[in-house]
């Protein structure tokens, strides 16, 4: 029996997983070398400014009473996020079935997470019923904003690409939540919401008194009261900057790893080298950071609301 018949008769795959992985690694290393030799180390690119990826141009200038209401990339992303949130949720709400399909099951899981863990886990039943829509909308709105931020959309009018003679803006990543204004407004709304709730529950003086932790009295009460007021205002910053900085940093990392670094330094091989990192970061941001940040924002909102009406915090 010859070796050929054995080889022909066996039904094993031609390459093992290990061999495939080695081949991919080989192509990767070879690519770096080839691009490095062919393109070489070019000059550094001084004109490219990566932060301009996040710059807002006035697409439709609107000025009312001295305030700039112009439609920008951020406004467009806001509108897309809001539309997607409303359309998908209302669509799912309208076709709720007793026996759910996969999408409904996923939405129900998120809904239950919001209802049971975030809202009902922090406040009593009556308060939970009142504040659930607010917290759920916050979560979904931030989640959708974060997620569409990872879909490349033709929004970069600084650089155009030609498609059959048609000049269309380059595709780029952006996120409404990567702009401080937007998380700041949401944090402000949360701040106003829990302060109002606290004052409604205890009265203005009672609420201010409630800021002083239990057991503190006498001379120490005054500085601690000031600290508590400051910490309340700091929540505004921590809430908004946590979201903003996470999303912005994620986008910058993806941007740099997926080519910006190579463009900036003029080393083409670097782009090939960092691309896998860019892909890995992209997956990490989409699967974890987007939902995690929305979850944190919603959970903190629930905790602040519950803390505002609690007897002592």
């Amino acid at each position, binding site marked *: 029996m010859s070796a050929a018949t054995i080889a022909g008769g066996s039904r094993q795959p031609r390459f093992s997983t290990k061999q495939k992985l080695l081949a991919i690694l080989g192509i990767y290393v070879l690519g770096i070398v080839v691009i490095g030799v062919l393109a070489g180390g070019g000059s550094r690119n*001084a004109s490219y400014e990566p*932060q301009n990826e996040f710059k807002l141009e006035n697409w439709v200038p609107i000025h009312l009473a001295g*305030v700039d209401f112009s439609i920008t990339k951020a406004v467009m992303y806001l509108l897309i996020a809001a539309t997607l949130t409303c359309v998908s949720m*209302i669509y*799912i709400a309208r076709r709720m079935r007793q026996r759910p399909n996969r999408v409904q099951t996923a939405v129900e899981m998120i809904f239950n997470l919001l209802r049971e863990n975030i809202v009902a886990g922090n406040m009593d039943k009556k308060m939970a019923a009142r504040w659930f829509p*607010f917290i759920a909308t916050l979560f979904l709105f931030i989640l959708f904003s974060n997620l569409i931020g990872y879909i490349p959309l033709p929004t970069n009018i600084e650089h155009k690409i030609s498609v059959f003679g048609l000049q269309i803006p380059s595709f780029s990543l952006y996120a409404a939540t990567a702009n401080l204004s937007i998380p700041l*407004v949401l944090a402000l709304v949360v701040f106003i919401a829990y302060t109002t709730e606290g004052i409604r529950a205890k009265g203005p003086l009672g609420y201010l008194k409630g800021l002083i932790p239990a057991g503190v009295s006498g001379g120490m009460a005054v500085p601690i009261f000031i600290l508590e007021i400051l910490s309340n205002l700091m929540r505004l910053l921590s809430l908004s900057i946590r979201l903003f900085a996470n999303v912005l940093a994620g986008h910058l990392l993806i941007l740099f790893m997926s080519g910006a670094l190579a463009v900036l330094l003029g080393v083409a091989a670097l782009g090939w080298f960092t691309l896998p990192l860019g892909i890995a970061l992209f997956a990490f941001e989409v699967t974890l950071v987007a939902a995690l940040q929305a979850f944190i924002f919603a959970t903190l909102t629930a905790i602040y609301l519950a803390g505002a009406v609690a007897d002592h915090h």
Partner: protein
Amino acid sequence: MLASHIPLASSGNFLVKPGIGLMIWTLLVFGITLVLLARLAFPRITEALDKRQKAIEDSIDSAERTREEADKILAEYRERLQEARGQADEIVQSARQMGETHEREAKEQAKELASDAAQRAQRDIEAATQRALQELRREVADLTIAATEKVTRKTLDSADQKRLVEEALSELDFSGVSGSSQN
């Protein structure tokens, strides 16, 4: 090294500078989203989830109820079976007793009948013996009278003769003839 080429600090401050217009846009968009979701989406989803929750609870309740019922029926059935078994035992017991009583009574009756029959037979035998003895006496008396007349050629007065003969006969012992009837 990289920092000098990425002038974030010099021209990137728009990143952290809040714009009032954009903030109002955000407020507006978020507000509309909140109203739409709170009106059109959340109540329906909540309702559907609560309804399912209720349906699940109901079916668990009814399953429990059915099981309890089944348990009850099973217990009842077992009890009845036990009862029936007891009754059957009782029936068998009483039947056996009745049978035994019947048997005993029948035996006693048979015994009685047998002893009755024996007594009657005894009495018949005795009566027959008495009758035979009576007849024998008469025969013997007549024969004796006839023999005496032949010897004496004289006719005895019938009444005298008879008294004499019967006196003589009564002195005779017929115990040997009557046999077993005497005891």
